[in-house]
C-alpha cells in the first residue's frame, strides 16, 4: 500500500516537473544533439493490456535512443489535448498518441501541423476527414484478427460434415474491435453453411458479463460446439459458466479468443481455451522505427499494422514464461 502511495506521489511530482519544463526551456526539445525527442500521450492505465503497451513504448524508446516525454491522460481527452499542446510548445521532434476518443482532434492536430511536428497515431484511430493531420496510424487490424479466428475454426472442422453450432460473445456494442472481429470472423466462416452462429450477445469485454451471458447460452441452447469470444476476459468468465454446467471447456465446447493477455494464455496452456489470436500491445519497436523515418522526412505508409501472431495450446506453453503481460 505504502509503495503504491509513494508511486502516486511520485507521479504527481513528475507531472508537476513536466509542466514546469514545458513553460520554460523552449529549445531543450530541439534536435541539436541529434537525439530524437518524442512526446507520447497514453490513454491511461485501465487494463493489463494498456500497461504492457506503456511499458513497451518506454522500453523501446530507451533501446532506440529516443528521448521520450511520456504523459498519462487518465482516460480524458482534455488531458490529452493539454499534453499535446505542451509537446508543441516544447518543440519535440515527433508526437505520438493513442486517442481516448475518435473525434474532436482537428484543432490540436492542426496546431501540430502548423508547428511542423509530425504526428503518429497508435492503437486507436481518429475520425478526422483531413488525413494530412497525421503521418500514419500504427495499430491492430481487428478484421484480420476475426479472420484468423475464423480460419482456425474452418481448418479444425475441414474433415467434418456435421453442422457446427457456434455461440459468440461480442465486445462492447458499437466498439471498433467488437464490430470488426465479428465481421472478419463472419467473412471466413460464411463460406461453409455447416458453420452456424446460433447465439450472439454482448458481454461488454468483461469477465462477469461473459459468464452471465454464457450461462444463459448454455441453458437455451442444448448443443454448443464452439465459443468465439471477442476477448480473453469474456472467455475466462465463460469457462467458469461451462464448468458450472458440468461440461469441459476446451473439449466439450471448443473456445477461440482474441487478445492473449496473461490469464488467457494460462487458460490456453491449461487446455481450457483452444486458440487465441494475439492483439499485441507491444508496438513500441515499430513505433520507434516509424518515428525515426518520419523525423528524417522519409515516406511512411498511412496505415501500419502491428506485428501479431496466433497461439495454439502448445505454443502457449512455450511462450508463457517469457510473456510480458
Amino acid at each position, binding site marked *: 500500500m505504502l509503495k*503504491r502511495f509513494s508511486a*502516486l506521489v511520485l507521479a504527481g511530482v513528475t507531472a508537476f516537473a513536466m509542466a514546469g519544463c514545458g513553460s520554460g526551456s523552449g529549445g531543450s526539445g530541439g534536435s541539436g544533439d541529434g537525439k530524437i525527442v518524442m512526446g507520447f500521450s497514453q490513454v*491511461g*492505465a*485501465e*487494463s*493489463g493490456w*494498456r*500497461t504492457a503497451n506503456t511499458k513497451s513504448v518506454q522500453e523501446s524508446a530507451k533501446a532506440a535512443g529516443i528521448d521520450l516525454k511520456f504523459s498519462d491522460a487518465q482516460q480524458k481527452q482534455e488531458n490529452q489535448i493539454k499534453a499535446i499542446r505542451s509537446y508543441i510548445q516544447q518543440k519535440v521532434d515527433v508526437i505520438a498518441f493513442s486517442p481516448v476518443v475518435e473525434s474532436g482532434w482537428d484543432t490540436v492536430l492542426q496546431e501540430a501541423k502548423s508547428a511542423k511536428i509530425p504526428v503518429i497515431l497508435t492503437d486507436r484511430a481518429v475520425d478526422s476527414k483531413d488525413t494530412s493531420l497525421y503521418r500514419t496510424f500504427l495499430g491492430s487490424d481487428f478484421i484480420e484478427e476475426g479472420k484468423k479466428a475464423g480460419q482456425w475454426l474452418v481448418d479444425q472442422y475441414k474433415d467434418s460434415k456435421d453442422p457446427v453450432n457456434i455461440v459468440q460473445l*461480442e465486445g462492447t*456494442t*458499437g466498439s471498433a474491435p467488437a464490430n470488426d472481429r465479428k465481421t472478419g470472423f463472419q467473412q471466413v466462416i460464411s463460406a461453409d453453411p455447416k458453420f452456424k452462429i446460433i*447465439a*450472439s*450477445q*454482448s458481454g*461488454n*469485454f*468483461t*469477465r*462477469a458479463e461473459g*459468464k*452471465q*451471458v454464457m*450461462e*444463459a*447460452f448454455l*441453458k*437455451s441452447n*442444448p448443443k454448443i460446439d464452439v465459443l468465439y469470444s471477442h476477448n480473453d*476476459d469474456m472467455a*475466462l*468468465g465463460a469457462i*467458469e459458466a461451462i464448468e*458450472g*454446467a*458440468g461440461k469441459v471447456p476446451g473439449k466439450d465446447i471448443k473456445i477461440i479468443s482474441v487478445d492473449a493477455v496473461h*490469464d488467457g494464455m494460462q487458460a490456453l496452456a491449461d487446455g481450457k481455451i483452444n486458440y487465441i489470436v494475439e492483439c499485441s500491445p507491444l508496438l513500441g519497436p515499430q513505433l520507434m522505427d516509424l518515428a525515426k523515418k518520419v523525423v528524417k522526412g522519409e515516406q511512411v505508409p498511412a496505415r501500419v499494422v502491428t506485428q501479431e501472431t496466433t497461439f495454439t495450446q502448445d505454443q502457449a506453453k512455450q511462450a508463457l514464461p517469457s510473456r510480458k503481460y
Partner: protein
Amino acid sequence: MTAFLGPFLRHRLFWPVVILVGLLLLNLVFTDNFFHVEMKDDHLYGSLIDIFRFGAPLILVSLGMTLVIATSGIDLSVGSVVAISGALACLQISDLGNQNSVGGVLSAVGVALLLSLVLGAWNGLLVAGVGIQPIIATLILMVAGRGLAQLITQGQIITINSSPYKLIGGGYWLTVPFGIIIVIAVLALTAFLTRRLALGLLIESVGGNAEASRLAGIGSRAVIITVYTFCALCAGIAGLMISSNVSSADGNNAGLWIELDAILAVVIGGTPLSGGRFSLGGTVLGALIIQTLTTTIYSIGVPPQTTLLFKALVVTIVCLLQSPAFRAKVFHRRRRPAGAPPVAEEKVRVSA
C-alpha cells in the same frame, strides 16, 4: 370478479408482480426448458436459479439504496464501493501464501467490509454533517472511488484461486447458491430492524421532513449517517459477491452503472424518490424484474444492437403501469365507478 380482485389490484406490489410474471411467460413461449430446474453436481441448476444468483448483488445494493432513498437521499457511489470492496479483498487474498486458508480469506473480507463502512460513513457525514446535497456528496465517491479501485488493482485485473472466497458469490450451500442465502439473511435483518423496531419509522419520518423530525426529537443526523453506512455495507457485500463469482477483481468494470439499476429497482418497487415511504419487498421484486429482463434478453436472443431499446421499452411499460394517473386513465372503464381512485389510495397508505 372485480370485487374479488379488488384487494389484489389495489395492492402496491400488484403491478410489479404482473410485470415479473409477464416476463417469465415470455420466456415460457420463446425459450425451451426455461422453468426446468435440475440437480447438477450437487447443486440446483437452471435459468430461474441463475436469475436469483446473478440478481443477488443487485438485490443487496437496492436494499441499501431503498433506505437511503426513503430518507429522500440518493447514493450514486455504490458502484464504486462495489469495485473497491472486491478489489481490496482480492488484493489481500492474492498476497496470501495459501489462498485457500479460511482465516486469511475471512480477514480479507473483514477489511474490505470495514472499508465499505468507512466509505458509507463518509457519505453520511457529507450529507448529514456538512449538509451537501446527497446527489453531489455521493458523486464525489462515485468518481474518486473508481480511481481508488484502480489504484488498489494497479489498473490490472487481479485473478485469484481461492475456494473459500469462491463460496461467497459462486458457491453453493445445501444445494442453494450461497449468494441467495446472504441476500435472504440481509433482507431478514433489514426487515426486522426497520419493521419490527422503530428504525423504519424514524427513516420515513426523516425522509418526510428532516427538520420536523429533528424538532420532534429524532436524531436525523444519526439516522442519515446510519442509512448511508448500511447502503455502503450492502454494496461492499455485493462487491465481494461479484468478484468472487468470477474469481477476479476488475477495478474498471465491477459494479459499473449498478447504481442506476439499483435506483430503478427501488422505483419499480414503489418507493418514491421523494422519500418518506419505502417497500423492501417491492425493491426485491424490482431487482428481480431487472435481472429477469437481462436473462430474458440473453435467452430469447434479442440482437445486441436492440438490447437497450428492448430494455427501455419494458422499463417504460413498468413505469407507466406503476403510475396511478396512467392506470386511472387507461383502466378506468373496467373499474367499478364507486372504487376509490388509486391516486388517493397511494397517498394515504402507510407502508406495511
